[in-house]
């Protein structure tokens, strides 16, 4: 039976890009469908009625949502270049840090950059603390790693679940900082994290699956202007 893989995504969404990276690392052929935000496409509402969000993967007609769930699904379904290591303890660590990124890092960063002014200082402190913890976890590794082959020789040399999950930090934060005129992440404060960003962005499978910088910057600048105009 010919396999059918469709991905509903958004060009600017880090969550959507995570799934694309994972699929590309595995060499899975898929059809990409850009979600029409204005009309919240009927298909999206059908396939993800609970959250009504992208990314949604349709595999042979069966829908799956939530990017971290999808990263695990992709690992389980297609062989080769896994994003999780085989050892249960290391898998638990990778899952822990991916969850930490989504539950703590991203919300704090978002609030620090876009939140109400009264919340920004506290969010900034939290974001800095979280990034420090993440940096500590990196130690002297080039990547968070744990992957089986995508972009390297396996183990810590290969892109793993945490590297993919941290794509927002590697790429989007820098762009948003420029749009907003703030600085949380910089090379002086986070030398180890920056080395990781350089390493990650040097991997072609990552680089080729990021939204164009100028387009992304323009988007965030217009968001900032819209927010100012509404005040």
């Amino acid at each position: 039976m010919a396999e059918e893989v469709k991905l509903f995504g958004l060009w600017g969404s880090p969550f959507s890009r995570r799934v694309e990276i994972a699929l590309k690392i595995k060499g899975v052929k898929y059809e990409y469908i850009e979600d029409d935000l204005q009309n919240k496409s009927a298909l999206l509402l059908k396939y993800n009625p609970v959250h009504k969000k992208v990314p949604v993967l349709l595999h042979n007609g069966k829908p799956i949502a939530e990017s971290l769930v999808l990263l695990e699904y992709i690992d389980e379904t297609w062989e080769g270049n896994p994003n999780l290591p085989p050892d249960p303890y290391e898998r638990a660590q990778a899952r822990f840090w991916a969850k930490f990124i989504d539950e703590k890092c991203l919300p704090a960063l978002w609030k620090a950059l876009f939140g109400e002014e009264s919340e920004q200082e506290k969010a900034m402190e939290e974001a800095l603390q979280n990034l420090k913890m993440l940096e500590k976890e990196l130690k002297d590794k080039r990547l968070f790693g744990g992957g089986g082959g995508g972009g390297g020789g396996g183990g810590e040399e290969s892109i793993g679940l945490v590297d993919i999950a941290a794509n927002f930090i590697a790429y989007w934060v820098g762009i948003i900082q420029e749009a907003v005129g703030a600085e949380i992440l910089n090379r002086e404060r986070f030398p180890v994290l920056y080395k990781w960003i350089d390493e990650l962005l040097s991997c072609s499978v990552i680089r080729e699956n990021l939204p164009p910088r100028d387009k992304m910057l323009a988007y965030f600048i217009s968001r900032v202007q819209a927010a100012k105009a509404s005040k």
Partner: protein
Amino acid sequence: MAKTDVKVLGAWPSSFVLRPRIALNLKSVEYEFLEEDFGSKSPLLLQSNPVYKKMPVLIHLDKPICESLIIVQYIDEVWASGPSLLPSDPYDQALARFWAAYIDDKWFPSVRGIALPQGEEAEAELMVQVFEGLALLEDAFDKCGQGKAFFGGDKVGYVDIALGSFLGLLRVAEKMNNVKLLDEAKTPKLVGWAERFCSHDAVKEVMPETDKLVEFAKMLRARFKAPAS
């Protein structure tokens, strides 16, 4: 394997702490339960979970694993010879992960909000969210379990553990608010499932009694309301 090779750091009232205990019971793995004092955090806890400083923590062969659902997955993978907690089919597995994430990220905050309320206005909205969630989960029950006894099918699985661990909190919310949340008229499948889950051998010895939980919740409420001294 010696009993001391496996330790669970936790406290009896915590829903999250129930999860690894149920999982270990299902796998027939003996463990040492290190009871934390709910008011303070032991040095072992702080050392084992420096990022969140929260329970549960599983300590296996001196290595700590944190976050309850991550611990459950770890238990499933390490003790692979025991009954599996996650489905083997990748799609069913993804479905299980999806619903467990929904339960923790979306549904649980509403339940906690009405069990340990912050203010009357928010409560009405939260109550609606809890009922909406239960309706979704009633629907998910058959999707996951294919009409069998549990979300995991014939046996207790990942989603059963994720949702079932909150049954105590749900009962507290019912008592405190004088409302029936698990209602046979609205979610009959969940009502039947809840009874089966709570009477399961792996669950009944660790699930705290509702009365004790209510007392504990009242104590917590009083503590929050008391003026800072």
